[in-house]
């Protein structure tokens, strides 16, 4: 059973909508700037990618983002509503933590609850639906995408929605500041002078359908979701990935097997956070899977443009990958100036984007605790 993407929605630091994301990422812009959303504990505003024009009545940024992006994706897919059945896979690291924090201060029950993300949307879309919320840190939306793919392949539904969201909150930002994992300026994936990650917020939504269902109603697929894989490092450290890249390479191998991809992909959208350890691990993992041939695969990262959006990262990077396939253009790693020679000979795309046809793209993510995901996208149209 083949599964295709028929709708996409996005909210990023560039603003509302996939078009704003496309204009930013492929226009060589960054939405990273000094935080003006709230005062930080040390009085020093951090560089973050955030949305400026959120309506003041919004109580939860993550809930607001998911609603906006779901509407955009469902509108693009032009689904015949209400659907008889819908599988929803939500992803977030902290859910509505801003509401929870306000409730703690106010001494009252907050609404929506911590994990009620877009909760009243789903009954409007389908007569029968099932919602699963994955909160596996930075791999949450990669895993949610994989779950949705398996559900549709199994036949329990013909349509699914991957809805991933993360809001910029003091809780998230102060948390990562306390971990001392933030870059001084913007993040610089794979650069010799990289010094950490930069946080972002937003939502990424994908409407998935079986190809049969999409064709029967005359929908135009944007790309095929061809396969995915995930794995755990199972090594002895919470915050550092397996330096040998074994877990990430297992996820990659599984995703390629699942997609029936035996050769090289046409590009790879890496997790590419800009931390010393993650970037090194990813390069090791890529070499484990592709050997020296990995030097022939263009490698990119969207995080200097939209920041690290945690629970939403995988879904937003898949949206970027679909756009990349449609535009025949691999976006540049915006801040990369001097590729780290210790990472070996790899084809990082930097300086300017690469105009190139891409029939298959792999998007990969890794997370705290050693989880790894990889998703394979394949072109459907000639």
């Amino acid at each position, binding site marked *: 059973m083949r599964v295709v993407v028929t709708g996409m929605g996005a909210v990023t630091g560039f603003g509302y909508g996939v078009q704003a994301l496309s204009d930013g990422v492929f226009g060589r812009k960054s939405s990273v700037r000094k935080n003006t959303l709230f005062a930080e504990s040390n009085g020093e505003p951090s560089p973050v990618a955030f949305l400026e024009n959120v309506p003041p009545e919004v109580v939860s940024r993550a809930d607001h983002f998911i609603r906006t992006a779901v509407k955009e994706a469902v509108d693009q897919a032009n689904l015949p509503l209400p659907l008889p*059945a819908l599988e929803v896979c939500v992803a977030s690291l902290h859910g509505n933590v801003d509401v929870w924090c306000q409730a703690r201060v106010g001494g009252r*029950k907050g609404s929506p609850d911590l994990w009620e993300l877009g909760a009243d949307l789903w009954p409007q879309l389908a007569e029968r639906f099932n919602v*699963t*919320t994955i909160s596996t840190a930075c791999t949450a939306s990669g895993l949610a995408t994989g779950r949705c793919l398996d559900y549709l392949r199994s036949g329990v539904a013909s349509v699914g929605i991957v809805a991933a969201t993360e809001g910029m909150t003091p809780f998230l930002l102060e948390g990562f500041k*306390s971990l001392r994992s933030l870059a001084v300026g913007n993040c610089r994936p794979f650069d010799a002078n990289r010094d950490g990650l930069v946080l972002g917020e937003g939502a990424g939504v994908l409407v998935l359908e079986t190809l049969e269902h999409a064709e029967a109603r005359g929908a135009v697929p944007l790309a095929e979701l061809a396969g995915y894989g995930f794995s*755990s490092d*199972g090594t002895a450290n919470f915050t550092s990935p397996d330096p040998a890249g074994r877990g990430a390479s297992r996820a990659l191998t599984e995703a390629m097997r699942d997609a029936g991809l035996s050769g090289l992909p046409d590009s790879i959208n890496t997790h590419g956070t800009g931390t010393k350890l993650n970037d090194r691990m990813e390069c090791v993992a890529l070499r484990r899977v592709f050997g020296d041939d990995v030097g022939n695969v263009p490698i990119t990262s969207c995080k200097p443009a939209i920041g690290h959006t945690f629970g939403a990262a995988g879904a937003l990077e898949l949206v970027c990958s679909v756009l990349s396939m449609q535009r025949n253009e691999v976006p540049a790693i915006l801040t990369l100036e001097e590729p780290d020679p210790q990472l070996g000979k790899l084809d990082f795309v930097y300086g300017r984007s690469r105009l190139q046809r891409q029939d298959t793209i792999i998007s990969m993510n890794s997370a705290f605790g050693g989880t790894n995901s990889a998703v394979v996208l394949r072109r459907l149209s000639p």
Partner: protein
Amino acid sequence: MIGQLVDTVHIVDAPENIDTAYAAEVDWSQGYKLNPDSRLALVGVGRILKAVGNIFGAGGAERDRVALVLGSDFGSLCSYESFFNGLTRKVAQPLPYTHALPSTPTAALSIFHELHGPTLTVSGEAEVGVSAVRVAQMLLAAGRCDKVIVGCWHAPSATTAKAGLADTAQLLLLLLEQSNGERRSALQPGDLAMWSGGRDGRTCVEVLNEWVAGHRQQFEAPIRMAS
């Protein structure tokens, strides 16, 4: 319904007793820093593995075929509270923040037991344990794993007290196995776990326990309770 139900472990105990059990049953030098949620999960998984024996194959060769799916509704909130209380004093502490990531217990289990297969954390409301079982069943049906340890946990906190939920630490785990090792298609809605009830003052573990009691005969093999 997808999966053979091999065994279950059900824990309902005072939080301080979980700490005692953790000290007695889990031998992990790194583990002294873990939050209560992770200690509870480590005790529970240790007990189910003790009950069923080695599920990782000779020499651990099948570690990548064992999955772990844990759900919680108010999971890790004692760590949320700890980190947030520090924030209100303008003291952001890294360890409480690390513990406030919902996936901390699954990460601890993955590291301690050297799991290489899929490890997922599911968050939600009262139904989250049943959702976790559904995720686990789909992993089996899709051929992503051969065995899966699945369940949910409840750790008491100020937030759960405000919600009127139990002040005991609770955990319910199931060990499910794939019946034939092949990817299954054309599933029917009844092949996967579903829950349509409300919370009614119950924890996610209490809801899952009720669901298991009502559905144990529908799994592919009869249930065997661990002590």
